């Protein structure tokens, strides 16, 4: 098992290397860079950009150097924790992202948690009461969750919250806490706000997950070992939890890797609509304005998250399923 983990970690290095090269290439592809866009924008507004400052910055950040050299400088910095400098916000990327990243991770984590907490009981109920009215109703709700785009759901919720309760539910905290150090009041404000984006962002995921839990469990409930468990005298619920549910967990653990990045990056639009202080809107803006270090570091960060997520799910699967742990590579 230890050898397996070491091998997996080693494989991550070339994977991330190739990914970073790809990201860098994509960032380099547009014929212009941030400063040219900036100068053009200024010109369009009838103002003259400070060309000497532009030249200075270009030199300072090595934009006049060949791409290969710039790539390695970027990567070297990334490894040391220096993610580069955002031209648009005129501050280091790490300072810019830091706070928002914390919020993003908080939102994502709570979303995953909420998704599972809601989806598992519903999925189990649907599978054990297949084709009952409860099953139909819950399936219908789940399908609604999948079918309605997040941002639309966010708009609808915002509208009704305003019309019915006179509430403004945007943001992750009360505006007066912006740029304030963390305090008990701030934390309370965050908790009061966060459940709405969590539910909205989680709606689609919950629907999908209910469907998969139901399908997986229905498969497992047909299996002979479930009959064996009942023939032993176990009550149906205990047997269900110990055997089929345990087996269907495999499926979810192996999907942790996919869940992490989609929740971080998949909710930009919702975040914009709800004006959340997460990283989503930042990434969107960075891509629009060709703020290349901000965008590039961001994308690379997402890739790291994906690779780490897959690693976690593989290791967890190894612990969960002895067939993975003990038989790996032994077949054929």
């Amino acid at each position, binding site marked *: 098992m230890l050898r397996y983990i070491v091998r997996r970690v080693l494989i991550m290095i070339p994977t991330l290397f190739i990914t970073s090269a790809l990201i860098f290439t994509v960032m380099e592809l547009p014929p212009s860079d941030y400063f040219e866009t900036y100068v053009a924008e200024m010109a369009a507004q009838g103002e003259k950009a400070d060309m000497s400052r532009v030249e200075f910055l270009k030199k300072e950040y090595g934009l006049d150097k060949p791409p290969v050299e710039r790539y390695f400088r970027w990567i070297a910095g990334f490894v040391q924790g220096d993610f580069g400098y955002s031209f648009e916000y005129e501050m280091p990327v790490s300072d810019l992202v830091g706070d928002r990243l914390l919020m993003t991770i908080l939102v994502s984590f709570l979303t995953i948690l909420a998704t599972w907490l809601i989806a598992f009981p519903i999925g189990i109920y649907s599978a054990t009461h297949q084709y009952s009215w409860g099953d139909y109703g819950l399936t219908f709700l789940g399908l609604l969750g999948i079918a309605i785009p997040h941002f639309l759901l966010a708009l609808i919720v915002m509208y009704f919250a305003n019309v019915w309760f006179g509430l403004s539910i945007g943001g992750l905290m009360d505006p007066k806490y912006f740029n304030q150090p963390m305090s008990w009041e701030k934390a309370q404000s965050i908790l009061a706000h966060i459940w709405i984006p969590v539910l909205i962002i989680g709606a689609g995921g919950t629907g999908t997950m209910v469907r998969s839990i139901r399908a997986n469990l229905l498969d497992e409930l047909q299996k002979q070992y479930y009959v*064996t468990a009942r023939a032993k005298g176990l009550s149906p619920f205990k047997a269900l939890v110990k055997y089929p549910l345990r087996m269907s967990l495999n499926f979810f653990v192996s999907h942790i890797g996919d869940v992490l990045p989609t929740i971080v990056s998949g909710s930009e639009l919702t975040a914009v609509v709800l004006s959340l202080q997460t990283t989503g809107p930042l990434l969107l803006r960075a891509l629009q304005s060709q703020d290349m270090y901000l965008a590039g570091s961001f994308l690379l960060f997402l890739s790291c998250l994906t690779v780490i997520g897959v690693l976690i799910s593989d290791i967890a699967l190894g612990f969960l399923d002895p067939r993975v742990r003990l038989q790996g590579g032994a077949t054929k």
Partner: protein
Amino acid sequence: MTKTTPPDVLRIEDLRIAFQTHGELNEVVRGVSLRVPAGRTVALFGESGSGKSAISQAVMGILPKNGVVTGGRILFTDPAKENGALDIVPLPRDGKEIRHLRGGRIGMTFQEPMSSLSPVHTIGDQIEEALQLHRPQNRKQARAMTESMLEHVGFRDPHGAYGRYPFELSGGLRQRAMLAMALICHPALLIADEPTTALDVTIQAQVLKLMKDLQREIGMALLLITHDLGVVANMADEVAAISNGRIVEMGPVQDVFRNPQHPYLKALLKASPHFEMEEGERLVSLRDQAKPTAPVSRLVKSASAEKPLLLTVRNLRKTYGNVRRGTGTVAVDDVSFDIRKGECLGIVGESGSGKTTIGNLITRARSADSGEVIFNDGNGVVDVLKLPPRELVEFRPHIQMIFQDPVSSLSPRMTVLDIIREPMLIQERGSSANQKDRVIELMDRVGLDPRFLNRYPHSFSGGQRQRIGIARALALNPDLVICDEPVSALDVSMQAQILNLLKDLQASLGLTYLFVSHNLAVVHYMADRIAVMARGRIVEIAPRNALFRNPVHPYTKRLLAAVPVPDLDRPLDFEKVMAGGKASDPMTWSEYFRGDELTHVDLGNGHLVLADRSCGVRELVA
């Protein structure tokens, strides 16, 4: 008085069970009455679909959701208590009372030990769970009891076995673990649903012996559900034969075997192949559809020696896995044999002996590591293993295959017409109309009604599907047909039909068969010569009668001794079967058959046995 008639542990009275499909009730058990006396073994015998499994499920209260008991009573009397009989039928499904019986007073084992055990829990965990449910213990004691149970059912290292997962165990050990699970609470009744069907014969004999011993020790009653008359004859005190949801014959095993009354049982006894059959004697199958087209007497057998060689296999080798890293297993190890035109060569061996791989290598479904497969149909000699891709495609019609599983070997999305025509399409034989005529002709040949041309495989029974597979194999007029366990998925009566069909086709079309099977009786019925395989090698090859009358190799002897025969006068010699370890383990063979200098010693008349080079014929036969 009570000694002669022990009280009934289980008494089933006029039981009716129906399954609901598409809103319709379909009765599968139609008024069955049955009793299982304490400490005795009752065999419930029938073919698949006869309703025998539904009865056992009803006793346990674990019928599938669409199954309902529509009438009758299931009375369970616990000999350990004195509160009289309890009717299981009206008990609430999954209620407390029925769960107390399940696993506690009535144990059950299932056919497929792999899928019946959870793959992600250790066997110790799963066995101990049953114990804790019904006879709660503290953890240490529970573990000790579980380990002693494991030792009881034959695990050599019970402490280590506790932490093993089912996939780490062989089929026989898995079934032992199942038994331990069912018996750990010392139930009054054990229901064993086809306990040995998935096992090799030598393992089967060991498990049967184990069940007998445990039954005596625990003093429980045993309801044995099986379709194997050999198992019935060796295990049962009483027999109940069931057909179409009705008990057709019931009584002490002596009466039922020596003097069967019902035509169904008489017919079944005739339908199963056995070793005493004369050459040319035919199996009489139940519900035989068509009379044989070819007269039986045309089966000429003795003259095979003069016939030309069709296939010559030399030094065939195949290794799975990585040899250099030391993880490889040798599946086929230096195998050589000949097949003459028109004969049937049988290959027998237990699972993992490499017999199926040989068929795959000859057809080049898998590639061999080394060796030669020389094919000569009189129009030129080819080495099949060296054919370049394009010539291989042209050569393929000469060798065709019939597969084991009639369900998965036919595409469910193709009609019978498409399935049988496909080989002709691939080989571009004839026009579309010609092909269709040929398909109709083939269906007629294998006993299928050509009106079913446009049906899909799912609307046919297992035996009919196997006929489709046979028609497909014959579509290109092959010289050699490799039959890989063609009847092992079929019931006895179906099996008889298919075997007879294969024999008739061989006679009328002049086919040559390579017949691979684990069932010695079936190979005995089909083959002219038989090769016995163990651990990838042919340990003995001989004409049929020589092999069965004078087996020389210890492995062959053990195999033959382990086959349960449906004959009360020849019970299994359990002591012999249990003697030391796995039959295929060379350490259990006498020294003549071990060592590095093994060669095939000729005993005359084409009887060869794998033995030490220095051995004389006389030492071996002695």
